[in-house]
């Protein structure tokens, strides 16, 4: 049983069917339907205007940048971009919804029929994207208690109201909770590659609703689905789905039926809880938005957006493996850390082996760079080149690296200033070797009587005496000669 399938252990009689709806806040400077700022963390209600507050008489106008971002996401997800799409009103009352309707796209979404390929273990799998549509974000409620029902009062912050969102809807073709997580991880990475969202789940700019049902193995009939709302972390997504697999499996095992309903995930209790059943689902009374004309796009414009899409994660993974011979593990590291990847590509321009670059970047450098920021590729190349040339010993690399982080000097300058060049001269080292042996007659005797592991001690003493600069190869050779 593969690692990602652990959630269905013991539920061998059922297939799990999962479909996702992912809301993504687009990275536009201004909101979807007005010109207010979208910056996160401003004082409450400081980024609002008559339009996003829904004041009487205010009217929406479409932010072209949002359409651009949504189109880009659609293209990166292999969708068909619909040159004609429309906006609709979704009507419901809630204190965070200023107009008491959300402007969204229902019947005619911007994008349809796409897919995303990603790895589950070592298997490349595909999840179909049914549609991507644009809509506006609601405001944010801050309750004095734990929920709107139990609070004495609730405060509303409309800074978030009207921020542009896309909703990405997948087909129900995800088969286990771990796969759902991997899909969203890959999706998130892809969205950050194309720069359409900051995808910060903790700030709510990427939120997942999951539909999940179980069906008897090999049955064509789908089971009754349950919707889990507002999963705000990868952990919550996976845990909530695992919980549902068990819960629904147990009900079915006992001959029960699943209620079609919306549920929420209680992270502390580690379980999902019923929110409302299908019968209580609101009638949103969707109808065409009369304040906005249909969105009509030019094919040439769509093509210009297509041309602006950079290399995507999966392509990059392939290139790192095939062109540079990286292992899946290494390539995955660079795909997930585009900043490291850029440095890798920069360093690959120098006469250095990919292996040396990878080992360097994934080693101590990774830790230091995360703490102190990246070094210029040119300076790293300088260090790796003198290592390759043998100007310094491998054990001096760390000293030079530290110095590179704390000064503006080149690796060569640092080596020169600190006298770190490797000692390779036999006559010079012979004196040090002789000195070490002379100072330890007992140990020399023991070595000669068979304790060969003492050689390491002698090497260490020589290295210490030369402050690590001695070339270990030369030292070994001299010691062996002297002790034979």
């Amino acid at each position: 049983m593969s690692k990602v399938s652990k959630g269905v252990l013991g539920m061998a009689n059922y297939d799990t069917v999962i479909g996702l709806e992912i809301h993504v806040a687009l990275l536009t400077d201004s909101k979807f339907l007005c010109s207010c700022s979208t910056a996160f963390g401003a004082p409450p209600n400081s980024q609002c205007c008559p339009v996003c507050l829904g004041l009487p008489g205010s009217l929406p106008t479409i932010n072209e940048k949002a359409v651009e971002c949504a189109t880009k996401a659609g293209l990166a997800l292999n969708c068909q971009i619909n040159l004609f799409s429309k906006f609709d009103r979704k009507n419901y009352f809630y204190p965070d919804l200023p107009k008491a309707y959300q402007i969204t796209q229902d019947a005619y979404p911007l994008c349809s029929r796409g897919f995303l390929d990603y790895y589950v273990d070592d298997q490349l799998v595909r999840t179909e994207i049914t549609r991507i549509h644009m809509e506006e974000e609601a405001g944010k409620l801050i309750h004095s208690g734990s929920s709107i029902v139990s609070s004495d009062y609730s405060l509303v912050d409309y800074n978030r109201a009207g921020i542009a969102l896309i909703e990405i809807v997948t087909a129900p073709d995800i088969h286990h909770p771990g796969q759902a997580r991997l899909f969203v991880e890959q999706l998130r990475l892809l969205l950050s590659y194309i720069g359409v969202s900051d995808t910060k789940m903790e700030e709510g700019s990427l939120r997942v609703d999951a539909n999940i049902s179980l069906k008897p193995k090999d049955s064509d009939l789908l089971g009754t689905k349950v919707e889990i709302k507002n999963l705000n972390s990868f952990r919550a997504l996976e845990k909530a789905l695992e919980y549902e697999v068990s819960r629904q499996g147990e009900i079915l095992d006992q001959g029960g039926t699943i209620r079609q309903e919306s549920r929420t995930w209680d992270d502390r209790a580690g379980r999902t809880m019923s929110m409302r059943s299908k019968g209580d689902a609101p009638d949103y009374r969707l109808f065409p938005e009369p304040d906005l004309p249909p969105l009509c796009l030019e094919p040439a414009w769509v093509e210009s957006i297509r041309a602006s899409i950079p290399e995507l994660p999966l392509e990059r993974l392939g290139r790192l493996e095939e062109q540079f011979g990286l292992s899946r593990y290494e390539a995955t590291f660079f795909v997930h850390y585009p900043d490291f990847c850029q440095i890798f590509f920069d360093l690959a321009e120098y006469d250095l082996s990919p292996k040396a670059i990878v080992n360097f970047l994934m080693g101590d450098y990774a830790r230091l760079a995360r703490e102190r920021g990246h070094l210029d590729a040119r300076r790293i190349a300088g260090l790796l080149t003198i290592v390759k040339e043998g100007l310094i010993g491998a054990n001096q690399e760390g000293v030079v690296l530290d110095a590179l982080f704390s000064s503006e000097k080149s690796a060569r300058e640092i080596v020169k200033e600190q006298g770190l060049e490797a000692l390779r001269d036999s006559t010079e080292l012979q004196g040090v070797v002789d000195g070490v042996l002379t100072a330890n007659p007992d140990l020399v005797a023991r070595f000669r009587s068979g304790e060969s592991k003492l050689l390491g001690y002698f090497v260490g003493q020589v290295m210490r005496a030369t402050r690590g600069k001695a070339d270990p190869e030369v030292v070994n050779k001299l010691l062996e000669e002297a002790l034979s």
Partner: protein
Amino acid sequence: MKELIQSLDVREVSAQEIVQHHLEEIAQHDPGIHAFITVDQEGALRQADDADRRRAQGQALSPFDGIPIAVKDNISTKGLRTTCGSRMLEDYVPLFDATVISRLRRAGLVLVGKTNLDEFAMGSSTEYSAFGVTHNPHDHSRVPGGSSGGSAAAVAAGEVPWSLGTDTGGSIRQPASFCGVVGLKPTYGWVSRYGVVALAPSLDQVGPMAKRVEDAAALFALIAGNDPRDATSAKAPSFQVPAWDPEVLRDLRVGVPEEFFSAGLDSQVEHAVRGCLRQLEDQGAVLQPLSLATNAYAIDTYLTLVTAEASSCLARYDGVRYGKRVEAEDSNTMFAKSRSAGFGSEVKRRIMLGTYVLSANHYEAYYEQAQKVRTLIKEDVLDALSQVDVIITPTTPTAAFQIGAKRDPLEMYLSDLFTAMANLSGIPALSVPCGLNSHGLPMGIQIMGGNFSEALLFQVGYMIEQGVEGSARHGQL
């Protein structure tokens, strides 16, 4: 108006004096008519003072700098409360000017106050205002029409020289007809709706109301034009006031749809309209009988769409951010109580109807069906307009009715019988007084034309106006 502007230009009178005069007229007539919800005496005099100062420095903003105007109280005015005739917005003071208001201010017009209307523009008599009924200046026992009844009555009573109204199914033209003034429902999209409190966004338009066609045209020129803040705003050029040349009638093809002259049309109205048509014919126009059969469906279609859109547009009045709030234990109860207390019965009726026609089980049968019929109506109208230059009908089936006469909402809805078609198809329509009936009540004639044909409508309207005897033009006021 011409005289007013001339006397301002030669500094015979000041804007202060003109505004003061109109404020006195309001003080004298409005207790009986109640055309205004809010009169901004102080603000008006201050604006007039500014206008005089500009004129003294030779820096008049436009020929109309210092001329007073009244505006229907569903058009947002920064700093001046905008109630929509509703308790819901009794104390609501907008933070911004509607685009049409900005345009008026840019021309130096003096906003003297906000006029009464049926609550949220839902009505045809101005009886449904939370601030009381407006009376027809020609007969105080009768309605002024609606929903722009305040704007029509204020002009008819001489309280202001002109005004702005809004028209979703006839709300400018019908009161214009009842009060004996000129009113235009412009081509959809030629006037910005930004800041105009929505009744039904796909139908709403702001338009001018004035005593004379020339003045209505001049006011229209001030407000028409593209507005980037309204996504439904047409990319049309600005409107130029046409030359008033009788030659316009030569060989003008005038469509006369028989459906508008059938049973239910008051005989005096028919007589007056036919008289005008004969006159146009005498002056060179060619009358062409035609059929607009789809008008039979106009009212049902109109009501379905208007209630659907209104139910959504009025949902924002929930007591959370502005407007009336009735405190309650939880937010849903607060919404319900606030809305119950804030809205009048006609508004509630339309919200319920609209919610019904949009609901999942009825959407197809009502809303979607109405959209299809709307398309048919539009095709019917455009087809007719491909054969004629203008279509002329009565504006309303009767002259002004008695206050309280129409208790049945369905009967009230029929007031829009001749006017809703222009809104559904988007075309412009102008109402011009065409005489007085035996009770001395004004009657109106409606001229419709193709999109952006306002100049022609005004020209034809002007010729009709010239043909109607002076005293019969606006009544004895």
